């Protein structure tokens, strides 16, 4: 628990920051605040974290509902199963830790204690993909979509900014089973002006176009929107779909993109083996039809370290990189 005292004792330089003063940097981590609002209206919502309240801003919730906030210390598996126990007694616990620990370290607890018995626990896996930059592989999560999608009875959503985080939290609060929320690093720029009207299991149409469809998720959406802008200047009109829901999956959205546009490019900061791209591939392959199709993301390798924005550029997840893949696909 964060005891609050002067957060900047002894500091003189305005550029200096510490854990407490860095909280506003994570401006798109609105889940603490949103859940606190939701908890004003219902008494079943709880928030749990594993020594990361200051890292994921769940302390926004803690400050408003200290009695419904629990810090489990650095024990993610215990947190997951404790949440199962709370849920069995009627609570709707939101548990939060880095995606790497949520989805990989707790995969078995999620499957066995949450998904199979259909516990209403919501797992907030933040800092997914390579958004942890120079923290390296132990903190990257380019496997979490594959893992969570393979778990039956688990709903998987992936907000792309603050507004869609709010929308998805509200939209899934009453899901009868558990939910995995794949979140970024808290600095995602706005895609939506206000919380979008989301529809369960549907992609969100971000931009219309007929020459190509880019289906992106998470931080990839930002890049895809930028890429669509670049390509529009070249006369290529791109449909951009935000895969806010990874499970259930928008089969119709894929089929429509196949028939209505000139191809499909998927974009994700996840291994292309088992991620969004694979989900789309399943639909394409079983449709019996064909289209130009490419999975863009992490190509079954471990990312280099570096500042996240530099890494996204390095792996072509920025507008220019995505536009290059789009041109290549259309040219192929």
């Amino acid at each position, binding site marked *: 628990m964060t005891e609050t005292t002067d957060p900047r004792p002894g500091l003189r330089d305005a550029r200096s920051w510490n854990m407490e003063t860095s909280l506003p940097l994570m401006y798109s981590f609105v889940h603490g605040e949103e859940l606190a609002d939701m908890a004003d209206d219902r008494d079943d919502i709880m928030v749990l974290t594993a020594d990361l309240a200051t890292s994921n801003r769940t302390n926004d919730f803690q400050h408003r509902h200290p009695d419904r906030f*629990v810090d489990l210390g650095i024990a993610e598996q*215990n947190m997951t199963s*404790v949440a199962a*126990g709370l849920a*069995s*007694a009627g609570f709707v616990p939101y548990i939060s830790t880095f995606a790497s620990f949520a989805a990989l370290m707790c995969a*078995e607890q999620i499957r066995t204690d949450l998904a*199979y*018995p259909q516990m209403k626990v919501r797992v907030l896996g933040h800092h997914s993909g390579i958004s942890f930059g120079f923290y390296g592989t132990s903190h990257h999560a380019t496997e979490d979509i594959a893992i969570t999608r393979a778990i039956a009875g688990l709903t998987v959503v992936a907000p792309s900014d603050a507004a869609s985080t709010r929308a998805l939290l509200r939209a899934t609060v009453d899901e009868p089973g558990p939910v995995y929320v794949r979140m970024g690093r808290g600095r995602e720029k706005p895609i939506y002006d206000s919380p979008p009207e989301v529809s369960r299991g549907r992609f969100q149409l971000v931009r219309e176009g007929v020459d190509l469809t880019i289906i992106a998720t998470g931080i990839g959406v930002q890049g895809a929107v930028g890429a669509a802008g670049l390509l529009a200047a070249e006369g290529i009109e791109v449909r951009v779909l935000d895969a806010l829901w990874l499970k259930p999956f928008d089969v119709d959205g894929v089929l429509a993109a196949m028939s209505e546009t000139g191809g499909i490019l998927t974009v994700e900061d996840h291994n292309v083996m088992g991620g969004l791209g694979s989900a789309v591939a399943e639909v394409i392959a079983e449709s019996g039809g064909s289209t130009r199709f490419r999975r863009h993301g992490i190509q079954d390798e471990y990312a280099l370290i570096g500042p996240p924005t530099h890494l996204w550029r390095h792996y072509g997840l920025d507008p220019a990189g995505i536009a290059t893949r789009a041109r290549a696909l259309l040219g192929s």
Partner: protein
Amino acid sequence: MSSTSPPETTSSRLDRGRVLTAQGLAWRADWVRLKTVELVEIAGSGHYSSVFSCAEIFAALYYRALRLDPKDPQWADRDRFLLGKGHAAIGVYPMLADLGFFPDDWLADYARVGSRFGDHPDMRKIPGIDFSSGSIGHNLSVGVGMALAARKQCRDFRTVVMIGDGELNEGQVWEAAMSAAAFDLGNLTVIVDENQMCLDGSVSAVMPVEPIVDKWRAFGWAVTEIDGHDPSSVIEALDALPATDSSVPTCVLAHTRKGAGVSFMDLSLHWHLGYLGEVDRADAEAEITARMEAGTSVPGGSR
């Protein structure tokens, strides 16, 4: 499957501290053993010995210590029982049927395709099962969540989690133990069925867990040691559990013998899993039945 409901189960809501004599408990424990032998016969394989070590404790919990309502299995104020060593669920099913959680004949398709009843307990299929298990080491954490829920909801139900001694190898048990102490969960009890064996042989040879008492104390728990086959010892320990509004979680360390009650399984290295053909089943049943008729109990003592 015959039903032998003791008189105290006639009302639907069962309170804590029901009447159960030491002799009645011994009888009930052997009944659990008998029923286990019967059910294993349907499946063709099963964990006899993991039930035999904790049969007295099972009986004491379900016929005396736990507050239950067989007609309302989801009753919010019921005591919770979680079986970390889920492979012993075969010993729990007959008690649930007997207490009226579901009809006896449901058990007839034990382990068959689509049955509710498998090797491990399933909360979504079986009335009276408070949480599913099977992956050793999870249930104490789940119990922490339940005990914490009781606190948040100002309810006085008790949560009891039974785990194996081999289960103490799992780190998640110690995560859970640490958090229970931190949360002052005096409404949580763990019963360690210290039957001296895990799957590959004796716990002390595979991955020793001693000194068990010191470990729980160091993790902030109060510890009571009992002879898990001595009916009075078991009853006393469960009667003496602290009030649910107390703040120190309790570990009941039950010294038991895996396979106790059937001589050729008693502390055998090879009986974690198995099957009894007709002749041996008859022998086992005879040994158990003889005790039930004589009104005696399984010899106590852990070795």
